[in-house]
């Protein structure tokens, strides 16, 4: 049967593809979840309308990357999917409920009048907050590893809760808030932009603190990871990652103070990228950390091949029309309507 096994390293390609999909999800839904996190703190209702309008045409597409990441995981690494979902049962369900409450708010908020609009303002905010925090906790629990027996999760219902995962959850809340704030600097003007700029500066400090904490404690938790980062000559090779992160922090801060509109958003993406790379290097080659490698979790080569063909054909198209939809809704967002 049809298989690309003898031509390319299928598991490796899929490892990269899933990692890319998850990263794109983090960036894209990150900024619109971030807007939700900042939502109630905006100075006026007109600002809130503008914030909502700036992401309304995109949120659905952004969330699709999550479905692609998860669906891709099922298709390309079914074993990892089958172990991780039960292990992360509760935070995943809570995240989904958060996504429901925020997702429907886009439509309901504009249909609601008077006081009932408040319900959807809060639904949007707390949904975004809960979804983000739970994604952080999922990440925190994931990097600590899960108990596995045979081909199944073998741990308890509350393994995912501990100080570390709470910390990662908070880190992600600030991280997404930074993406959201810098997105708003780019997409709005006037008092919304001024406020967003202030928010971004404020949040930036917390992102720095949490990123430092998470990174350092990550190396403390696992001796292999510690050895990877703190042994010569590795440290020397890996130094550009923390260094470039530091440089980008400084540039974001300067960009915000000099009134630049685009640079902060794209450099925040850069900060996420280096953070993600650091994570990837620490967790290589695990698909379920420290238990199942991406090669062990790989689906049959025929399955990976079939979906790879589809991905190779469709992904450029998808990226093309996603870019088109961002192009259609380019420029500053108004607070009234998008027509």
């Amino acid at each position, binding site marked *: *049967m049809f298989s690309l096994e003898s031509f390319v390293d299928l598991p490796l390609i899929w490892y990269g593809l899933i990692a890319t999909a998850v990263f794109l999800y983090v960036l894209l839904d990150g900024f619109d979840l971030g807007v939700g996190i900042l939502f109630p703190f905006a100075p006026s209702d007109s600002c809130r309308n503008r914030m*909502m309008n700036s992401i*309304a*045409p995109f949120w*659905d*597409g952004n*969330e*699709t990357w*999550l*479905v*692609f990441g998860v*669906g*891709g995981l*099922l*298709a*390309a690494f*079914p*074993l990892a*999917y*089958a172990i*991780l*979902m*039960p292990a992360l*049962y*509760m935070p*995943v*369900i809570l995240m*989904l*409920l958060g*996504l*429901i*409450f925020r*997702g*429907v708010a*886009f*439509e*309901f908020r*504009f*249909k609601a009048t008077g006081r009932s609009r408040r319900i959807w303002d809060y639904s949007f905010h707390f949904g975004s907050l809960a979804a983000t925090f739970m994604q952080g906790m999922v990440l925190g629990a994931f990097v600590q590893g899960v108990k596995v027996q045979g*081909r199944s*999760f*073998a741990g308890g*219902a509350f393994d995912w809760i501990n100080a570390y995962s709470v910390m990662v959850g908070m880190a992600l809340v600030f991280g997404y808030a930074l993406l959201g704030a810098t997105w708003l600097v780019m997409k709005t003007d006037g008092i919304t932009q001024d406020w967003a700029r202030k928010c971004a500066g404020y949040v930036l400090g917390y992102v720095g603190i949490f990123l430092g904490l998470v990174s350092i404690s990550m190396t403390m938790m696992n001796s292999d990871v510690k050895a990877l980062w703190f042994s010569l000559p590795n440290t020397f090779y890996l130094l550009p990652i923390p260094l470039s992160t530091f440089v980008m922090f400084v540039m974001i801060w300067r960009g915000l103070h000099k009134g630049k509109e685009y640079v902060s958003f794209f450099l925040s993406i850069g900060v996420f990228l280096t953070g993600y790379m650091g994570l990837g290097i620490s967790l290589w080659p695990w698909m379920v950390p420290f238990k199942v490698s991406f090669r062990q979790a790989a*689906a*049959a080569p*025929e*399955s990976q091949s*079939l*979906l790879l063909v589809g991905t190779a054909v*469709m*992904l450029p198209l998808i990226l093309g*029309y*996603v870019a088109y*939809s961002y192009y*259609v*809704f380019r420029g500053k967002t108004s607070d*009234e*309507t*998008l*027509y």
Partner: protein
Amino acid sequence: MIEKFDPVLLARIQFAFTVSFHIIFPAFTIGLASWLAVLEWRWLKTGNTVYKEVYRMWVKIFAVTFGMGVVSGVVMSFQFGTNWSVFSDRAGNVLGPLLGYEVLTAFFLEASFLGVMLFGWNRVSPKMHFAATIIVALGTLISAFWILSANSWMQTPQGYRLGANGLLYPTDWLKIIFNPSFPYRLLHMVTASYLTTAFVVGGIGAYYLWRNRHVKHARVMLGMAMIMGIFVAPIQAVMGDLHGLNTLEHQPVKVAAMEGIWETKQGAPLKLFGWPDQEEEKTKYAIEIPKLSSLILTHDLNGEVKGLKEWAKDERPPVAWVFWSFRIMVGMGVLMVFTGVTAAVLFLRKQLFSKRWFQLWCMAMTPSGFVAVLAGWFVTEIGRQPYIVYGVMRTAEAVSPVMGFQVALSLLAFIFSYVFVFGAGSYYILRLIGKGPGVLEKAYGTHGVKEPPLLTDLASEAGGKHV
């Protein structure tokens, strides 16, 4: 106490709850997207603004419904793993790529062009906007293609082999995708979606006519809905019959449950109603029509129909559920065909838009499609129990190693959230219907329309019945 929660039963109830809730939205949006494309085409072709106003009213309802479909659908992509991780592990090789293709070829397409469709009026040309509507409609159909292929494979699996650890491996993708029950299920479901939408639209149109509001728009709605009722409802009946015969070939025990037949018989009667008793192995209080079951299933008055007793007790589905769901679905279908025939007669007498009893009837038929779709899925999903992959893997083996109380808690959370969120959604849809097309709103939503009210509407509101 905690040990008493049965994880398998709870996982099934939870999955049934989330998936039943979810299917309501796609069932409606698949049909609605296609209808919106037709409306926009009519508008571009004729320049008649009534079509555009009807479009703009229904696109708002589409947006609310689609949003609810998206958020309840994201849940489903996780539920295979949270509830059925063993199934995901074993069948992932086969089903994973199918679901992957659904995301790649449908979800991104719908999500990206939905933005243009809803918010792009003044940002793209009318032709591009029309293209966006068509792309969204196509996206819903492509999505149906893949998910129904995956579901059908679980009903009639082929093109795979069994490997170590009980893992299933693909051997022939074309056989997997185009498995025996797939063409029937796809056509039956897509048609069901079209009919669901038609009866909702028709019901709302009838409501406006009955209240003597938005008469021009209401005629478009009821008229186009009844075209579907007249021509498509009978086609659906034929397709349902073909689907049933296909099921008889591949899952005869499901058909035996649908018919409530326990003993294998030649010239089996059709049981119209009755109470199938799983313990006593008979259908009590049955009202029967002699030999009709054999005629329908074998197209021969004396053909042999296999009864449930041909299969061991642990191979039979819960008969009463299947039996009654089937009757509800068929009952709705019969009412739809009847509505179509009545509409045809009234149309020929030029009374389609004036008979008030017919307007009341159409209003009563508004939810019929949803009831039929849910009942139909109950038939096919409960009817294939106790298997998750028919004849290959049992549902009880497929369940995740999670504690019962986790599933119970999350089930409660889902029920509470869904009732609240989707209750609110239904309320906003009803309000949009209450407002109707072309009425100038005070506060524009993002999908609001900035244009003056139409003269016809002003006249109909001021002048009451004389329009």
